[in-house]
C-alpha cells in the first residue's frame, strides 16, 4: 500500500518565490527576508559593543560623531551661495515679492512637472512664481502644507506668456509658449505677434503682459529667461511651414532646489521641517559584500527615508518591514545621484551615475552637468533632497580625483559606532503629487519640529 502522499516542498518553495516576484504581491511577501535582519542584529550586538570599546580605548570614541567644523562651514557657505543664486532672479525682476527656497522633491520626467517642498511653516499658493536664478521654472498649480506641484512651460498643455527681443534690443515679439506632448522638453510657439520677426537662437524671456491680464492675475515676473528659440526641423523636413520651438534654459531634472516668490503679507516661518530624527540601530555586519548597502533595525523606518551616519548620507531606505529596513547605499553601482557640487568659488547641480565600487573608492560618471561647469578635485558633493523624507544638501563626500572624466570618491563603510539617523518629513502626504490631500495636517500655529 502506498504511503501518505505529501505535497512536494520544492513546488511550494518555487511557488512562493514566484509569487513574491510578482509586482502585485503584498509587501510582506516580497520583504519577508527583512525579518531575519533582527537575527543578524542579535549576532551583531557584541561586535558593535567590542568596536565601541576599542574606539574608546584608543581615545577616538567620538570619531564617528560628525564632520569637522571646517567642512561644515564649507558646506554651509556653498549652500548659501547657491541659495543666493537661486533667489537672485525673482529678487531682481520682482523686488516687491519675498522669496523662499524650496527643495525639489520629485520630477515627473514625462509631464515635466515638479513637486517642491518649502516646509510646513511656509504657505505656498496656486499661481506663485517659481524660478532658479534668472530662469523661470514655472508656477504653482496645487499647494498644501508647504508642498506644491509646479507646472513648467514644458509641461503638457501648459500655457505661458513668452516673448523674444529682436536684434539690437529692439521691439519685443510676444507669443504663447505651449507645452508639447513630446519626449523632448520643447515648448511650441503659438500666436506670435509677428511671425516674420522670429529668428533662431533668440533668447526667450517672460514678457510684460500688463496690457493683457487684469491686475492681480498670477503671472511670472517679466524679464526672467525661459530658453532659446529654435526651428522645428522635423516639421521643416515634411512641410514648408516654419514652426518655432522654445528650448529650455535649464534642465529641471537637475535642480535640487528652486526659489518661490510670494507676497510680503504671506505667513512665512521657515525652519527645520523634518521630524526629530528617529535613531536607528545600524547593523555592523549586515552589509552587502559586493554592493553598497546595509540593514537597519529601529522605529520609524519608512521607504524613501534618508539614512545619515556621522553627518554623511549613507543611503536611502528601499524596503521596510516590522522594524527592519534594507538601505541602498549612496555608492551602490548603477545608481544615479542628483547632487549639488560645491567648489571653492561656485555651486552647481549635476547628475552622477555610480559605475564602479571597490578598493574603498567609487567611480562616478557625470551624466548631466551644466555645460560651462567642471568638477574638480576637492569639490564637495551634496545630495539633492529627492523624495519626501530626504533633506537637501546632505554631505556625500569630497572629490578625491577626476580620472578619464570620472569622479573618484572615497566610499567608506559607515562606522558602526556612529550616530545614525533616519529622517521623516512632518505632515507628509500619502501622494506627493496631491499635496492638498495630505494625510496629516501640521498645526500652523505650532512651532516646526526640531532636528533636521
Amino acid at each position, binding site marked *: 500500500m502506498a504511503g501518505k502522499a505529501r505535497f512536494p516542498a520544492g513546488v511550494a*518553495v518555487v511557488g512562493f*518565490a*514566484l509569487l513574491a516576484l510578482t509586482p502585485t504581491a503584498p509587501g510582506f511577501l516580497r520583504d*519577508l*527576508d527583512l525579518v531575519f535582519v533582527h537575527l543578524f542584529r542579535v549576532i551583531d550586538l557584541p561586535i558593535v559593543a567590542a568596536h565601541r570599546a576599542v574606539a574608546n580605548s584608543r581615545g577616538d570614541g567620538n570619531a564617528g560623531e560628525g564632520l569637522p567644523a571646517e567642512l561644515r562651514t564649507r558646506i554651509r557657505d556653498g549652500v548659501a551661495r547657491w541659495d543666493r543664486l537661486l533667489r537672485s532672479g525673482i529678487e531682481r525682476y520682482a523686488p516687491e515679492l519675498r522669496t523662499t527656497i524650496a527643495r525639489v522633491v520629485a520630477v515627473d520626467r514625462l509631464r515635466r512637472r515638479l513637486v517642491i517642498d518649502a516646509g510646513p511653516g511656509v504657505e505656498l499658493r496656486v499661481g506663485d512664481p517659481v524660478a532658479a536664478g534668472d530662469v523661470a521654472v514655472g508656477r504653482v498649480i496645487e499647494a498644501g502644507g508647504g508642498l506644491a506641484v509646479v507646472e513648467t512651460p514644458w509641461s503638457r498643455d501648459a500655457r505661458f506668456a513668452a516673448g523674444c527681443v529682436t536684434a539690437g534690443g529692439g521691439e519685443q515679439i510676444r507669443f504663447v509658449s505651449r507645452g508639447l506632448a513630446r519626449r523632448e522638453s520643447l515648448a511650441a510657439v503659438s500666436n506670435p505677434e509677428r511671425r516674420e520677426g522670429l529668428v533662431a537662437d533668440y533668447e526667450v524671456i517672460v514678457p510684460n503682459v500688463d496690457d493683457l491680464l487684469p491686475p492681480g492675475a498670477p503671472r511670472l515676473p517679466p524679464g526672467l529667461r525661459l530658453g532659446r528659440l529654435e526651428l522645428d526641423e522635423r516639421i521643416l523636413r515634411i512641410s514648408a511651414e516654419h514652426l518655432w520651438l522654445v528650448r529650455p534654459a535649464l534642465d529641471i531634472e537637475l535642480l535640487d532646489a528652486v526659489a518661490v516668490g510670494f507676497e510680503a503679507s504671506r505667513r512665512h516661518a521657515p525652519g527645520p521641517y523634518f521630524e526629530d530624527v528617529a535613531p536607528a540601530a545600524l547593523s555592523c555586519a549586515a552589509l552587502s559584500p559586493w554592493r553598497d548597502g546595509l*540593514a537597519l533595525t529601529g522605529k520609524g523606518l519608512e521607504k524613501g527615508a534618508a539614512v545619515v551616519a556621522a553627518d554623511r548620507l549613507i543611503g536611502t531606505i528601499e524596503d521596510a518591514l516590522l522594524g527592519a529596513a534594507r538601505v*541602498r547605499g549612496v555608492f551602490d553601482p548603477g545608481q544615479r545621484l542628483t547632487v549639488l557640487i560645491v567648489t571653492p568659488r561656485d555651486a552647481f547641480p549635476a547628475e552622477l551615475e555610480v559605475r564602479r565600487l571597490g578598493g574603498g573608492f567609487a567611480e562616478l560618471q557625470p551624466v548631466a552637468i551644466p555645460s560651462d561647469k567642471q568638477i574638480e578635485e576637492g569639490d564637495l558633493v551634496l545630495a539633492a533632497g529627492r523624495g519626501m523624507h530626504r533633506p537637501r544638501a546632505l554631505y556625500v563626500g569630497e572629490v578625491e580625483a577626476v580620472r578619464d572624466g570620472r569622479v573618484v570618491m572615497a566610499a567608506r563603510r559607515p562606522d558602526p559606532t556612529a550616530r545614525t539617523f533616519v529622517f521623516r518629513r512632518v505632515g507628509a502626504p500619502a501622494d506627493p503629487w496631491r499635496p492638498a490631500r495630505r494625510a496629516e495636517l501640521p498645526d500652523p500655529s505650532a512651532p516646526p519640529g526640531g532636528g533636521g
Partner: protein
Amino acid sequence: MVHLPFLLLAAVLLYVQATLARLSDVCPDVGPLLAVYLGLYARRENVAIAALLLGLLRGAIDLEPAAPMILIYLGVAKACAAMREMVYTDSAVSQWAVSFAATALYVIFYRVASIVLPMGAAGGENLMPRLAAATFGAVILAPGILGLLRLLRVGP
C-alpha cells in the same frame, strides 16, 4: 525545528562573511557552499525548505530581493542533490569538484536572474567579476566548511 541549527549556523557564516566584506574587498561568498551542503548531505525532503531559509537569510544580508536568491539556491541545491549518487561525498576532491561546478552554476543563475528579474547586480561595471571572484574564491574553503557543517550535525 529540524532546520533551526542549520539556520543559525548559516546566519553566523553569512554574518562572518559580511563582516569580512567590511574589512576587505576580497571576501569569499559562502552562500553557494551552504547550498552545496544541502544538496550533498541534507535529507532530500528538507532541501527545499532549507534553501528557502537560506534565500531569506541571504536576502536580509544582501541588497537583492530574496525571491531570486531562493530560486538560485534551490536550483544549486537540487543540482548537487542530483550528483549525490555519482560522487564519493566524503572525499575532499569530490567536494572541491562539486563545489566548483555548483559555483559555476550559481554564477550563471545569478547572471541570468540579474538580466531577467528586478535585481541590481547588473548595475555596476565590476559587480559580476567581483561576485564571481568571491564565489569561486570560496571553493577553496569547501572541504573545511562542509566538514564543519557535518561535524556539527546541523542537519537538516
